[in-house]
């Protein structure tokens, strides 16, 4: 092979958050995702890139679409996929994370896709395994693959993203999606606005985030995209806002606001799953500038690009059973 490709990109072992990756790496992943999407139109949708490699979905938190998206991505790269679902595992019997990782390490797993309700768990796992670790969402911290697939989706609509405006609506405080998406947008020169219940907008937000009190002022800012966050009912035990109906009336895309969205040609994005009648009304789902289904399709291509890029380390990180336990 005598090809010299100036567009080569150095590989990494793990993908844990958006902060630690560069703009060039984001660009590379977005660019690489595109040919993967083209594969989906072939009669044989699989490529042999990760043949013989094993990918483990390690989900400590319920997830259907992210897990399925990773599963399809890995299978289309010919990897073997195992789903480790916590409700049926020894974790409920009291095994620590480190012991679980040792067990999985012994099974010679090459890639681990980790989701956990505690922030930082994927980083901890990454330090303790030779396998490549991909953060599929940890606590309130990060969801990097979502941010990259959203960047890819944005890029399909706007080839030049600089100075475009994205309005993120919802629970900014608890959302790892908001954190990763805004960090990614910031890196790419996109302007960011946030809108949501006062109780769910962090006081310590960065200066570059424009904060709006209602849709009237937010629409006056002329956003190109409205990014609706899912209202995470399972996380909200405390009373951050009075009711779902009130949330919809104040922060959802109602019929009135949908008229403005259509007349201004604003794109709609949502990481899924959608709560119809809460974040948006039914009609939005069939709106021609609703990118939600495109996000799902791009999710598979982006995750294939990420798996293609990462390189598992040597099997020499640490010997099991020799270090202090109890960190987990």
């Amino acid at each position: 092979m005598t090809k010299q490709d100036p567009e080569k990109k150095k590989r990494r072992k793990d993908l844990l958050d958006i902060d630690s990756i560069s703009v060039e790496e984001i660009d590379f992943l977005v660019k690489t995702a595109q040919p993967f999407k083209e594969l989906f139109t072939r009669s044989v949708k699989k490529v042999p890139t990760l043949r013989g490699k094993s990918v483990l979905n390690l989900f400590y938190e319920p997830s259907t679409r992210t897990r399925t998206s990773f599963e399809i991505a890995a299978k289309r790269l010919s990897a073997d996929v195992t789903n480790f679902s916590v409700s049926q595992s020894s974790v409920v019997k009291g095994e620590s994370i480190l012991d679980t990782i040792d067990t999985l390490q012994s099974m010679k797993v090459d890639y681990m896709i980790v989701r956990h309700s505690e922030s930082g768990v994927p980083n901890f796992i990454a330090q303790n395994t030779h396998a490549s670790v991909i953060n599929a969402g940890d606590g309130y911290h990060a969801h990097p693959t979502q941010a990259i697939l959203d960047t890819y989706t944005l890029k399909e609509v706007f080839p030049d993203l600089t100075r475009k405006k994205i309005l993120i609506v919802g629970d900014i405080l608890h959302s790892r999606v908001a954190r990763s998406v805004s960090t990614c947008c910031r890196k790419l020169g996109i302007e960011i606005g946030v809108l949501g219940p006062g109780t769910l907008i962090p006081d310590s937000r960065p200066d570059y985030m424009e904060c709006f009190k209602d849709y009237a002022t937010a629409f006056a800012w002329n956003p190109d995209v409205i990014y609706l966050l899912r209202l995470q009912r399972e996380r909200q035990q405390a009373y951050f806002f009075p009711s779902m109906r009130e949330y919809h009336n104040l922060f959802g895309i109602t019929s009135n606001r949908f008229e403005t969205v259509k007349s201004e040609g604003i794109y709609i994005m949502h990481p899924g799953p959608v709560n119809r009648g809460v974040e948006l009304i039914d009609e939005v789902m069939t709106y021609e500038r609703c990118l939600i289904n495109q996000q799902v399709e791009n999710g598979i291509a982006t995750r294939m690009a990420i798996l293609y890029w990462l390189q598992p380390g040597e099997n020499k990180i640490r010997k099991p059973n020799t270090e202090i336990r109890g960190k987990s």
Partner: protein
Amino acid sequence: MSEPSLSKTHILDEKDINHKLRRIASEILEQHPKTPLAFVGIHTRGVIVADRIYNVLIEDRKEMVKGSLDISLYRDDLDNLGSIPSIKNSDLPFEIEGATVILFDDVLFTGRTIRAAINVLTDYGRPAKIELAVLIDRGNRELPIAPNYTGHTIQTSKKEHICSHFHEIDDEEGVYKLINSERAS
């Protein structure tokens, strides 16, 4: 490889390249006077070789289609690569099933690229026949693969590097042999 220690030996210039490509074109015409042909160039410079030969032949025979393919996802050495190539779109806008395909590449070396390209093609369908045309055959095969059409054959050692440049994407045109002079001396 550090820049200063490289010595560059000229193998083919622009005129030679065009001459060799025309000869390949006439051989293809001889072999396939009537069969419809699918030209497939391997990214990056195989695409240029395919284009040029296609343009020569289009005057004499009309039944031809062309496409390109990228073999990055079919490489057998990805585990060992510290840096990874960006992937280009494979563009095969015709039915591979039953087609007579000619693969084009600039330099044939170990044969592993061609092995990968054959696998890509067969994932699109079952071609009636696959042939191979290369501008340079530099030997040192690691797989039982032989070209049907060869522009130029040279003897090389595995440590040498053969590079081709074309006007379409490079500043100059020509084929060169690069040797690390420290190693050579």
